């Protein structure tokens, strides 16, 4: 009956398991790259990417594993990149924070907050010129909306009616700083609406709510060329800002704050909708794929030292 549930479950479960495995491997120091895990935030990545076409574009942040995978980025290339291998998505030059897959129209992640937003707007500018009805979905966190580049970007995108869906993954913290210490007013949607951009807030974290909102926004951009749309998706980062662990003991937040999000886990919610056999089959596929990707990463060579200075400039 439910193709969507199966597909979405596969996508969120895959991201969850990939990142859980990364967290397990991390203490071995095989991954020598800072990792910002998306565990807990999968629904935003998957809910939006599910409504994008193959040649639509995604721009993401340094917390980008989820968006990269949700948009179709290759898992082997991602794991190899985390291992610093020559077969990685950036040949080992980027690491976890700079995943990229231009074959799947995943723009490279950036480690400087909000810097990918205007770049995504520039890509949308090119898409508008191209007139092939493609759109950009641009992910960023709540902290990015505090940067000047964010306001400059949404202004320009609205001025030029660019086909870009801004997706704010509001997890409530910039590293360890809560919103209340950073936002003069609590409603980012109102701020964005002031630029003439339709904005919708989704507080439930529900993957179908996110998906429906994204679907409606993308459909309008594609059918009416009505310019940018904005979604603020409340979500929750289950692990520490950077690294493999939980950090509920560190004082800036409490496990009790997270409990509602644990109860509302999209992986479990979607999993429950599936027949047991279907779920097991998907889980098995995912574990096999991860095992294969790890093997690929392990066995791939490191780039040769002689390549250090190659590719600073494009030919």
């Amino acid at each position, binding site marked *: 009956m439910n193709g969507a549930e199966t597909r979405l479950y596969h996508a969120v479960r895959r991201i969850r398991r990939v990142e859980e495995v990364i967290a397990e491997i991390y203490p071995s120091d095989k991954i020598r790259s800072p990792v910002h895990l998306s565990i807990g935030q999968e629904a935003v990545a998957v809910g939006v990417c599910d409504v994008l076409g193959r040649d639509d574009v995604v721009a993401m942040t340094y917390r980008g594993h989820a968006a990269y995978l949700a948009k179709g980025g290759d898992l082997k290339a991602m794991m190899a990149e985390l291992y610093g291998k020559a077969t990685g998505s*950036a040949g080992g030059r980027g690491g976890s924070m700079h995943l990229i897959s231009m074959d799947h129209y995943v*723009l490279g992640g950036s480690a400087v907050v909000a810097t990918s937003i205007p770049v995504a707007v520039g890509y949308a500018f090119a898409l508008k010129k191209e007139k092939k009805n493609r759109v950009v979905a641009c992910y960023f966190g709540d902290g990015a909306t505090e940067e000047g580049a964010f306001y400059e*970007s949404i202004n*320009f995108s609205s001025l030029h009616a660019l086909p870009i869906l801004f997706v704010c993954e509001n997890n409530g913290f910039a590293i360890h700083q809560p919103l209340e210490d950073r936002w003069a007013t609590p409603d980012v949607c109102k701020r964005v609406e002031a630029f003439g951009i339709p904005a919708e807030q989704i507080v439930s974290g529900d993957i179908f709510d996110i998906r429906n909102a994204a679907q409606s926004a993308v459909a309008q951009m594609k059918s009416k060329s009505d310019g940018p749309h904005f979604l603020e998706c409340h979500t929750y980062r289950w692990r520490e800002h950077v690294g493999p662990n939980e950090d509920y003991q560190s004082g800036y937040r409490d496990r009790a704050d997270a409990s509602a999000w644990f109860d509302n886990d999209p992986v479990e919610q979607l999993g429950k909708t599936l027949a047991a056999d279907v779920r097991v089959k998907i889980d098995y596929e995912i574990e096999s794929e991860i095992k294969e990707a790890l093997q690929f990463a392990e066995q791939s060579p490191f780039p040769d030292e002689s390549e250090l200075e190659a*590719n600073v400039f494009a030919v």
Partner: protein
Amino acid sequence: MSLRSEKAHVISYAEALNEAVAQEMRIDPNVFVMGLDVDDHLGILGSTVGLVDEFGADRVFSTPLSEDAMTGVSIGSAMAGLRPIHVHIRMDFLMLCMNQLINIASKAHYMYGGAVNVPMVVRSIIGKSWGQGAQHSQALYSMFAHVPGIRIVAPSNAYDAKGCMTTAIRDNNPVLFVEHRLLYYTEADVPQEQFEVPFGVANICAPGSDVTIVAISNMVIESLRARELLDGIGIDAEIIDPISLVPLDIETIVASVEKTGHLLVVDNAWISCGMSAEIVAQVIQKASTPVRVDRLGFAPVPCPTTPTLEDAFYPNPATIASTAFRLLNPEMPDWAPDPERAALAYQQKFRGPF
């Protein structure tokens, strides 16, 4: 030099830039021009005048005063296959673009394993005289030269301006295109057809055997005048214009210095940690003969507006000539040329209001 054909015409630096951009826009629909006031009646001191009329507002448009994001927009559009030319009427405004230029543009190709190119041109103009002051006169290219991944060119005449612009637009990397306000009024014989000035090839503007003067941007003009002053007392200076700062044609400079034994770098910027330091260091590392060196550049202060101090702030033909003389003759008393002979016609052309 064969390009200086009968099809050449005498045009200004501003006209040369304009012509190069227009000609490339005619053959490459991916090229577009953006920046505050590129489409107004003044057209960036004439360098973009008429472009919007020929190519339309889709390809030539003004931007909000959002230099940071607009630089990101250039980068994103370049990653998507367009070839943006982002224009800033003052180089000082590049400080607002630093984040995108340094953190994204310069390293995207490398950091993403060659998966993307960023073919963009960032034009900016260095101001000088008529009280431009501390924030309208800065020459900040060495900040960018420090970072791998950005090409930097600073043409000193209309011929190089046109050829470098064509090369810059066609280059698959970010190119910082450094222009100088006072050079806008200079004219040269420039081919009417398109041509490229290759990056990384210095120009020996005038040959000489006693001292090598490497000059950047409009200091080339000042140094050529200084060469005439030096010639008056029997000193033969070779003037080299690197044209492109990244990549830098150090071989041509080293070969000259091995011949003359004396190197004076006249930068159109501050001295500390600047291009002059880089050039001198590389020459000393690479030259096979003993070298004596000196440097000239802006005084180590913010540029003042009052004419007496502003004049003292910059190297000029007289200070260049006397510095070269001292470099060659450290035992002799200082020499200064007749100030009237040292004046430059092109400096007199510029009046305000801005």
